[in-house]
């Protein structure tokens, strides 16, 4: 089992994942802004965003992140 700090094994976002999703909802759409809003180091933000995109909570276009319908549904 590979540890995923933003998405738990049952496919739901973890506390860190929810914090990231909330920051996106509140307008932080780039990794820099998300790092600033959540207080996470940039490497954690980048890996977390990758997990949240793969799990279908976020989508990315031109380096900007937005919530999917699934992402909106968990907030």
């Amino acid at each position, binding site marked *: 089992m590979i540890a995923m700090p933003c998405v738990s094994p049952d496919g739901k976002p973890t506390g860190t994942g929810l914090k990231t999703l909330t920051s996106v909802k509140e307008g932080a759409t780039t990794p820099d802004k998300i790092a600033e809003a959540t207080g996470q180091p940039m*490497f954690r933000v*980048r*890996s977390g965003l*990758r997990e949240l995109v793969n799990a279908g909570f976020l989508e990315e276009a031109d380096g900007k992140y937005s919530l999917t319908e699934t992402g909106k549904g968990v907030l």
Partner: protein
Amino acid sequence: MEETLTPKLPLIGEKAPEFEAPTTQGTLKLSDYKGSWLILFSHPADFTPVCTTEFMAFAEIYPELKKRNTELLGLSVDSTSSHIAWIRNVEEKMGVKITFPIIADLNKEVSSLFGMIHPAQSKTETVRTVFIIDPEGTLRTILYYPLTTGRNMQEILRIIDALQTTDKHHVATPANWNKGDPVVVPPPYTAEGAEARVKEGYDCKDWYLCFKKL
């Protein structure tokens, strides 16, 4: 047939090879560290004495490294479960919290990429390596220590200070330099430059050895 590992040693000045690996803080890529300095280091094994002292020492300098925009990423050929059990034990028994991620390199993918396994020392464990990678992903320093010798954290901090000073001020740093000491002015490469150098107001022992305070 015996498995043979051919360590590939990435060289200073080259781009560090990209990888994606499971860690105690999720799957990380080297490129996740773009924009910050990174100390990628290997240790032989979890739950071993010298490694435990090193991890406590790395944890101690981590706040200082953070002030220097520098992250730590450990690695050994152990599982994430083993890493987690070990760092929990270090916190419980030694009172030191390990907050940086550790790669679980069970398939030796990253250690082979960086030449961290030296078969004459051990075919299964990584030696004590330190790879300092700059914010653009270029390998700037490589240190190798044998299994029996724990690393000197002040030297690692000193190298970070030296590299950052070099990048900022375009100077070099002399033997035993520490932050705040005079730095070396790069020597001129022409006779005309040599002639001029001794008149430029630096503390020169001769045209090729000049110091200045920053």
